[in-house]
């Protein structure tokens, strides 16, 4: 090997080692799926953010008043088609649990005008409390929402037991509620 080729080989080796090290770092940083971090809530297993907002009917909705209950929090919008898709699931669940004081369901508009939300609630005969206004927008940030619909289930201990992105199904809702109540 000539005197010029030897350093070139050393240089190539050094570059190769650097590339391998960089690949390992990237792999450790992003793990298997770069989007995985964007598809799971950081809130699960942690205390739920407190919220305070005005309902579409003007009554206040406060998390403090719901302490000790299993609370289903549904982020939605009047214009959101997947939200319409999951509405029957919430409607049925609410019909079954609304008379049980250990349960609560709260809808929070995520990206909507208050007027559109009020109109949708009236026309679709939504009977669970729906929060609007500045408090609702703050809750969308505090819960770290990324879109709509998104559903969170908070246990009686105030810990977020489950989070779901996308149109909810009954088995998913039942599983999160059971986990929140310590029976899942």
């Amino acid at each position, binding site marked *: 090997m000539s*005197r010029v080729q030897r350093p070139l080989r050393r240089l190539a080796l050094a*570059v190769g080692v*650097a590339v391998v090290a*960089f690949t390992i770092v990237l792999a450790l940083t992003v793990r298997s799926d770069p989007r995985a*971090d964007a598809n799971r809530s950081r809130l699960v297993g942690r205390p739920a953010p407190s919220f305070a907002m005005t309902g579409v009917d003007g009554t206040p909705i406060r998390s403090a008043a719901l302490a000790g209950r299993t609370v289903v929090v549904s982020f939605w919008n009047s214009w959101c088609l997947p939200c319409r898709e999951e509405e029957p699931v919430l409607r049925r669940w609410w019909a079954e649990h609304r008379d049980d004081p250990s349960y609560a369901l709260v809808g929070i508009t995520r*990206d909507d005008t208050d007027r559109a939300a009020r109109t949708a609630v009236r026309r679709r005969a939504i009977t669970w409390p729906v929060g609007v206004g500045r408090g609702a927008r703050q809750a969308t940030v505090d819960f770290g929402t990324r879109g709509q619909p998104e559903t969170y289930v908070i246990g009686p201990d105030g810990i977020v037991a489950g989070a779901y992105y996308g149109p909810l199904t009954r088995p998913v809702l039942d599983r999160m509620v059971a986990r929140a109540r310590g029976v899942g």
Partner: protein
Amino acid sequence: MPAERHRHRPAATVGTWRRVAWAAVALGALATLALAVWPRPEDPSVAARTRRLAAELRCVDCEGLSVAESSTPSARAARADIAARIRAGQTDAQIRRAFVDRYGETVLLRPPSEGISALVWALPAAAILAGALGVGWVLWRGRRETRLVPSAEDEVLVARLRAEAAGAAATPNGSGPAGGARPAGPDVREASPR
């Protein structure tokens, strides 16, 4: 001729000036990099801090926009949250941490420069530095390898040929080395070591 002698500088001087020029280029590049990354004095107002921090955070329901650039209600809510936290006395790091706690590291438009993530910044810089050093070293070695250094034998040979050429020019029928017969002996160029 004197004029030609003035045009051709000695090799040592040319080499020095070349080194000075390269050093100046390297210094200029380093100074530009330093200026680019040097922290600028920050506007301490709430609006300016909100704008700056919002520009570092990804709008979660937009494509490729920061919280500062987006006009969606969630981005507006995020800006209001940042401003409220600034008014509450939180530091920039605490505000960034609050958003990372909710959304994960992906909410940051720039990867954090601490822990293992710091390697994302450090490795490319180290690779560029290593590459520049390697290229410089190879060039330096190449120049050293190809430089022709006359040996004592070469000097003797050149002196002898010059003497022969001068002798040939002094003879009445001679027309100088260019026009005369080629002197016997090895070619000077071939005799020089490579």
